[in-house]
């Protein structure tokens, strides 16, 4: 009797053990990838999920979740997750922090993996677009969004103020910063607000590159080694911005929050993906999208970039890189183009972009998107950017006073950041 009981017990134990072992084996095959992103836009998420589903269709054991983090604290949250041993498998990376991520060794190399993926043509991606994301000729992140900065215009407000619309100025060949600010000032004098550099808020100063590049100004030299904040071009550009704010009243003063897309301002400089914020129905207004005005240094364009990288410390690096290859192939890049302009030569035409951007006319796509991506310079970035950003932000606070000495402030900015460059 005792023997039978023992046998029963042993069988039960083996049964349980097998069950758990099978469970473990099954769990090992199941892979859950997590990608951090800074968008919580439903349309964006629906598109990502569609791409993830198509990957799951060919890799049934893989599922992908998209983890939306707030934009303002995105990099901070991401690095804290990494510090806490909870790094995602893949992550969006901002152009300003590209240097930190690419040079740290935190990201998995992509070039070989992409080359070995059937039908993947990396040479289709423009070299200019991948420059930020390479180290020693190796690609560490894929630039999935190369989005030009452009100017959205509220023609209703401009017409109400009796000013010339940007479209009229472009036609007359007079689309310059001087005239753009006159239009903004006219609307601001008529009860609404003038020009808003979106997300600048007197904090994210690098977004002002969309204005100061018209003067040929930049915060540091191309090699990133010397400070050029106090160069004459920058002084002139910043003086222009300062006057626009405090003398002409053409831009909201510090501490004022105004939303263009709520119909409260004449113009805003932002990326085309923000077209999804344009109001419809009763709140809709007559809007236009135009290239940035020209300045003393001629015509120019500025692009914001975002890359996707796979973390080298993850458990499923190869699968994560495989998913990245899938997400960034020509077919899915065409889908992503609806919100995130691709840097692929084969997709940069009005036909392809027009299908996914029904809000924009072929002329707008040509002049703003295609031309912008082809000629645009990426927003300034640098290794250790987060600290440089804060230090410059603190120094520039002195500039945002009505009686500021522009040149003195910019000189002090250089004094502070030279040791960090």
């Amino acid at each position, binding site marked *: 009797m005792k023997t039978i009981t023992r046998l029963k017990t042993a069988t039960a134990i083996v049964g349980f053990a097998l069950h758990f072992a099978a469970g473990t084996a099954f769990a090992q095959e199941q892979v859950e990838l997590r990608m951090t992103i800074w968008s919580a836009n439903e349309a964006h998420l629906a598109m990502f999920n569609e791409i993830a589903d198509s990957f799951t269709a060919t890799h049934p054991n893989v599922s992908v979740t998209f983890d939306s983090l707030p934009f303002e604290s995105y*990099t*901070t949250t991401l*690095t*804290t997750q*990494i*510090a806490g041993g909870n790094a995602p498998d893949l992550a969006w990376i901002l152009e300003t922090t590209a240097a*930190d*991520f690419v040079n*740290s*060794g*935190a990201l998995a190399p992509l070039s070989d993996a992409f080359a070995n993926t059937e039908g993947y043509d990396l040479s289709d991606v423009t070299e200019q677009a991948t420059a930020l994301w390479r180290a020693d000729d190796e690609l560490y992140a894929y630039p999935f969004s190369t989005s030009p900065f452009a100017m959205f215009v509220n023609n209703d407000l401009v017409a109400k103020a009796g000013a010339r619309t940007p479209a009229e100025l472009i036609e007359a060949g007079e689309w310059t910063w001087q005239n753009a600010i006159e239009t903004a000032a006219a609307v601001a004098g008529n009860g609404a607000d003038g020009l808003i550099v979106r997300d600048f808020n*007197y*904090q994210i100063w690098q977004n002002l590159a969309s204005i100061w590049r018209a003067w040929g100004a930049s915060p540091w030299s191309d090699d990133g080694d010397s400070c050029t904040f106090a160069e004459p071009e920058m002084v002139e550009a910043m003086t222009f911005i300062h006057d626009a704010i405090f003398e002409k009243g053409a831009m909201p*003063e*510090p*501490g*004022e*929050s105004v939303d263009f897309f709520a119909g409260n301002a004449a113009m805003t400089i932002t990326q085309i993906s923000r077209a999804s914020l344009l109001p419809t129905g009763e709140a809709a207004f007559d809007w236009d999208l135009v290239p940035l005005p020209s300045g003393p240094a001629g015509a120019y364009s500025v692009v914001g970039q975002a890359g996707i990288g796979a973390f080298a*410390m993850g458990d499923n690096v190869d699968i994560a890189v495989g998913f990245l290859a899938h997400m960034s192939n020509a077919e899915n890049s065409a889908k992503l183009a609806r919100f995130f302009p691709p840097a692929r030569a084969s997709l940069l035409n009005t036909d392809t972009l027009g299908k996914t951007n029904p809000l924009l006319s072929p002329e707008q796509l040509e002049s703003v998107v295609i031309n912008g991506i082809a000629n645009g310079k990426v927003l300034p970035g640098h290794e*250790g950017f*987060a*600290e440089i950003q*804060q230090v410059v*932000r*603190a*120094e520039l*606070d*002195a500039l*945002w006073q009505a009686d500021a000495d522009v040149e003195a402030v910019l000189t002090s900015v250089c004094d502070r950041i030279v040791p960090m460059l």
Partner: protein
Amino acid sequence: MNVAARSTTGKPHKRAFWTMERRDTLAGYLFIAPQLIGVVTFVLIPLGLVFWYSLHEWNVLAQTFRFQGLANYEALLNDPGLPQVLGATAVFSLGLVVFNMALALLLAVLLDQKLKGIAVYRTLFFSPVVVSLVAWTIVWSFLLQNNGGINALLALVGIEGPNWLRGSATAMTSVVVVQVFKNVGLNMILFLAALQGVPRELYEAARVDGTPAWMQFTRITMPMISPTILLTSIITIVGSLQVFAQIAVLTQGGPGMSTTVLVYYLYQQAFQFHKFGYGATLSILLFLIVAVLTFAQWQMRRRLVFYEN
């Protein structure tokens, strides 16, 4: 042969392990266990780890963790931003403690009356304490904007208000006031309880002696509630050194570095600039400041606190 070790039957007797004393000791430890486990897990171990991190260079992205001795402490002594940060921290703490305690005491004295509906007033002044800190601060950030509610009110009476959060003096004042209004109710309740604990006979006796009201306050009320003043001052100072959300929401440390207090600076260094080792070093500095201040206050109680049980 030891007689005591033998039972009446003469067999050797094994002495029971669980003596009364040991049982009491165990019970004592069990009673304090929940608190002890909490303190060890959430205070002592993290404190030890923070000190350990402060001796390292920890690059989160590159996943490197290198021992570098006291290099972070040397960097702390040579940090050009630190004097400004400590200055801002001192101004904030001092402003907060003085304004908070004075207002709390004033409100408590005013509310220590037997009036109809006094409970409603007490509730009103206490209610901000239970409001979510971030929600409270965000609402204030809208009110304090250049085109916000406060300046709109001032404009109604013909005053052009300053750009509260963008001027260095007004930004610090704004942060202090927002914080005081949020928490003054807590100190007010503590003061109110203390005031109500002062024996009424003392005031009656003083009145019989013809003592003026002001002197009754300074000679009876203040000494009688001095233990509460000490307690609230410690809570308020320690709390003021931990201010973070208000700075993050209202000013992000600006304009310039004028509202970059120590905790915010620590956050920037560790979480924004990815210098976790240096951030840990700043935490040690903050810990020492809090410890020294609390110790000094306890020492002062001998001179300033009366009637302590």
